């Protein structure tokens, strides 16, 4: 399997994505903003379609569209402070609307690979883009880790501790947009938010601390991506689907183990 060049590329991209997507997802889930992934991925799809019809590298256009959308969400969120989810619905509608128009304009035959991800179509350009943006995203998360932790826990107290909350939120929004854009090639836009949420959901079942929760999310993400890629190769299925279903299987397995453990504890108490 690893003798194929496209599989080597897939694994390089996969590991990076498995480190970044659940990391971003961890903060999103804890801030109760996990739907942002879905919203931005729909906008990224319209960006990719725009790239295809204008003959610009689709990942570039998807990145730009996602960043604009992320900034738009932040702006609208301030306008609709008490209906924060409204900003997501508005931007999602715009994304789907634009995507359908661009796709109907033609010359977008490869769009399916952006919907569900594809291993065979990964180019060296994709790899370079993912490596650069991936390292940039990961480094930024590391630098702002404590600020993000504080804002995630309590935004008002974070402000009073001297954290530039608006600036950090803005940086984080851009990171989410970048993450969506770089993951769409391998996971597919429709499944990015699943990879943002499922490893985190699994991690929350077993973690006791914030830091270990983040590490568990990454471990579950890496396992999901690795197993998913292998399954995709041998079963000739779309990688996005196999990655997400692997992630779901891990969640169900951990849920089962946790239930058994809890039952054992209850039985011990009863005795």
């Amino acid at each position, binding site marked *: 399997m690893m003798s194929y060049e496209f599989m080597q590329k897939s694994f390089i991209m996969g590991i990076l994505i498995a480190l970044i997507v659940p990391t971003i997802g961890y903060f999103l889930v*804890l801030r*109760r903003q996990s739907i942002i992934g879905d919203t931005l991925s729909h906008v990224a799809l319209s960006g990719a379609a725009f790239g295809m019809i204008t003959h610009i590298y689709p990942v570039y256009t998807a990145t730009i569209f996602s960043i604009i959308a992320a900034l738009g969400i932040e702006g609208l969120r301030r306008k609709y402070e008490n209906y924060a989810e409204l900003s997501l619905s508005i931007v999602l509608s715009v994304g789907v609307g634009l995507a359908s128009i661009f796709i109907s304009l033609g010359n977008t035959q490869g769009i399916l690979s952006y919907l569900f991800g594809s291993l065979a179509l990964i180019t060296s350009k994709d790899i370079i883009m993912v490596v650069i943006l991936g390292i940039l995203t990961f480094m930024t998360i*590391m*630098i702002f*880790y*404590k*600020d993000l*932790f*504080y804002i995630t*826990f*309590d*935004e*008002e*107290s*974070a*402000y*009073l*501790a*001297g*954290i530039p909350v608006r600036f950090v939120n803005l940086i984080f929004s851009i990171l989410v947009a970048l993450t969506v854009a770089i993951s769409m090639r391998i996971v597919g836009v429709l499944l990015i938010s699943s990879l943002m949420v499922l490893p985190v959901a699994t*991690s*929350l079942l077993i*973690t*006791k*601390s*914030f*830091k*270990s*929760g983040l590490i568990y999310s990454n471990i579950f993400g890496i396992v999901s991506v690795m197993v998913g890629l292998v399954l995709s190769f041998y079963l000739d299925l779309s990688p996005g689907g196999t990655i997400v279903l692997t992630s779901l299987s891990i969640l169900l397995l951990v849920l089962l183990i946790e239930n058994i453990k809890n039952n054992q504890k209850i039985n011990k108490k009863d005795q």
Partner: protein
Amino acid sequence: MKKKIVVGKNIEFSYGNNKVLDDVSFHIDEGDFVGIIGPNGSAKSTLLKLMLGLLKPDQGTIELFGERLDKFTDFQKIGYISQNVRDFNQMFPATVEEIIGINISPRKGMFKGLKTEKKVKVEKALKIVGMDKFSKDKIGNLSGGQKQRVFIARALVNNPKVLFMDEPLVGVDQDSQRSFYKLMDVLNKEHGISLVMISHDIGVISKKVNKIFCLSNGKVYCHDSGKCDCSNMLKDIYTDNMSILLHHHDSGQGDG
């Protein structure tokens, strides 16, 4: 003369067309224990947020420790327990130590744990609130009263001069409330920390504090002594249908 911790002059604040604070002035002195009371929607939390700079007044000025709020940067002097922490997600994955430690060095260091001197600070803060045995526990596994103590410890970890609390006793049982007021007494009298808290329980808080801000119809009525016979004022605020428990204090001066 006592130092002024917070001074508000001619404050006005509106939500859209609804003016919730109208030409309000007040001050909080060093060593004060201030209770903020008033019916629902009387802008208690708004007033607290204005004092902290979380909201900006439409008119008027607020000074913290003698500095205008927009110039104020010495956030270490302030401890704050918001309503948000009370309603926070029970599944939030963080230990007591992490929650308190984040307040010491929110902007320093990357993905690494607390250094020894910071750990000592965390332990000290936990000891003050009697929670030193729980530093490795997950915050979501603690009871309401225990969580509240952890949040107080988080606010205390930087040795603040003043502690602002937005309804810290909601959802806390009677025993925990008693120990909360004991702790407040220690912080106020022994550690010299000024306290400002919002409460709905007028009967209890009026016995504990030395100054009360009563909010009603956009106004703040401040008083801090037995000189203030506030039965009529409280009836205005809470209407005649409410049973008013009057409160008097031995010393201090009325403010308005």
